[in-house]
């Protein structure tokens, strides 16, 4: 289909020589922006999933001489319908949490740190959190229930603003691609005006002439788009390797969050060259049809 004879020698036209490379670059940039968006969305979904159904209860340390409020809090929590489990973090685990900042010289007892309770709830029948908060405050003044919602909401807002920016970038790249094809097509119309006029005068319909331009634009768009997609994939694989888990101080540490795309996200990325080619084809067609309307 793509190798049909061209009445208009568009394939020898210098003005289109760089079009595949320009489209490749645009698809590459759009691919990076899109995959960034998809990765962020996947990460947000993952955080959302892993934090849904978990709560943290923070129990302040007992006043001097007062009884430890932790057993009463645990009894309250475990007796609440919808709570699957309520497990306090051991003092050793709490000490490990603060160790990177304060070192191991001080113990949680010396610092009067609050006790943390890891609460798992039934997502299908969650407890009434407002009522639970009130009862907790009564059982242990100063106890706080953290459902991570604030943190997740802020994270979601951040991710959404990044996504909106990335999609705006993709739209701008699309606009730039359209303008590039418009100018290239106009250059082609000017260069091949004599041939186009002959075709017009021997009775070629506008669609016949436009088809030659659109076929050329589709082929170049597809070629450039595939190069752009290849560069995108190579970049993603490269960044994935660079951010892979590294042994650091005896522990596996990921320098970057996972950049792996979900299976359903790959077709979206793979559709970019096709979208670029179709945009180029339609742009060329409408540019030519518009120009031909000026002929008698």
């Amino acid at each position, binding site marked *: 289909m793509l190798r049909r*004879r061209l*009445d208009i*020698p568009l394939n*020898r036209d210098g003005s289109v020589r760089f079009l595949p490379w320009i489209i490749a670059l645009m698809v590459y940039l759009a691919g990076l922006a899109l995959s960034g968006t998809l990765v962020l969305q996947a990460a947000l979904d993952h955080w959302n999933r892993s934090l849904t159904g978990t709560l943290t209860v923070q129990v302040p340390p007992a006043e001097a001489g007062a009884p430890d409020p932790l057993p009463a809090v645990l009894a309250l929590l475990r007796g609440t319908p919808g709570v699957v489990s309520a497990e306090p973090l051991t003092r050793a685990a709490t000490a490990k949490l603060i160790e990177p900042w304060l070192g191991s010289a001080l113990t949680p007892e010396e610092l009067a740190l609050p006790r943390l309770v890891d609460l798992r709830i039934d997502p299908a029948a969650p407890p009434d959190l407002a009522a639970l908060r009130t009862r907790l405050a009564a059982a242990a003044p100063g106890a706080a229930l953290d459902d991570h919602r604030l943190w997740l909401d802020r994270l979601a807002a951040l991710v959404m603003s990044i996504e909106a920016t990335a999609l705006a970038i993709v739209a701008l790249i699309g606009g730039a691609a359209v303008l590039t094809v418009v100018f290239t097509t106009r250059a082609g119309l000017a260069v091949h005006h*004599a*041939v186009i*006029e*002959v*075709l*017009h*005068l*021997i*009775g*070629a*319909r506008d669609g*016949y002439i436009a088809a030659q331009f659109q076929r050329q634009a589709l082929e170049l768009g597809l070629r450039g788009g595939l190069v752009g997609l290849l560069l995108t994939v190579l970049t993603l694989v490269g960044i994935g390797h660079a951010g892979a888990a590294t042994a650091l101080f005896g522990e596996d540490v990921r320098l970057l969050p996972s950049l792996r795309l979900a299976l359903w996200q790959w077709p979206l990325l793979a559709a970019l060259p096709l979208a670029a080619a179709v945009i180029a084809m339609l742009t060329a067609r409408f540019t030519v049809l518009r120009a031909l*309307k000026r002929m*008698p």
Partner: protein
Amino acid sequence: MVRFENVGMRYGAGPEVLRDITMDLAAGSFHFLTGPSGAGKTSLLKLMYLAERPSRGLISLFGRDIATTPRRELPAIRRKIGVVFQDFRLIDHLSAFDNVALPLRVAGLGEEQIHEHVTELLRWVGLADKLNARPATLSGGQQQRVAIARAVIGRPSLLLADEPTGNVDDEMALRLLRLFEEMNKLGTTLVIATHNEALVTRFGHARLHLENGELTQLRARERQAG
């Protein structure tokens, strides 16, 4: 077939190159279009093959008023018109075969039919061995024959030729004129612009004569008739 009523034409804001052209060419007629250089012969042909629009007056082709014919219907009218351009206007990157095949391809004919018709016609104009030759490798006369073959391949109802014998020898000129006469006998209406008085005299067809953008001969005849 071709009717002009008080047609005037100018390029842009320039002076009128054609003035008050009124004529009615019957279907199946054969006219030579004569006149000195710059008289407006090519402009008159351009109006007939719809490359230009008149600045005033009415043009009717095949019974259709061109001014009121929708643009989408003009290609079908153009396909009924064969044109031999003065400067041939062959497409450089296409072979002689593909140049001649263009009107048939544009009309949507099958490749098998195209091959048969084009090969036969190029053989008839003496270019059987030049099917795959590019225009740049052909002599002026050969290019002109390819241009003529392209104009007649679609068996047009109206054939317009601008100096079609300008670059060929006398023998080929006669041969081409005989081809035109054959087409005329089959019903094609012809208008041939030429400077070649010998041919005009020899073939003795009706003459449209232009002087300074006006059809003088017809007016003289009209005056005689009046």
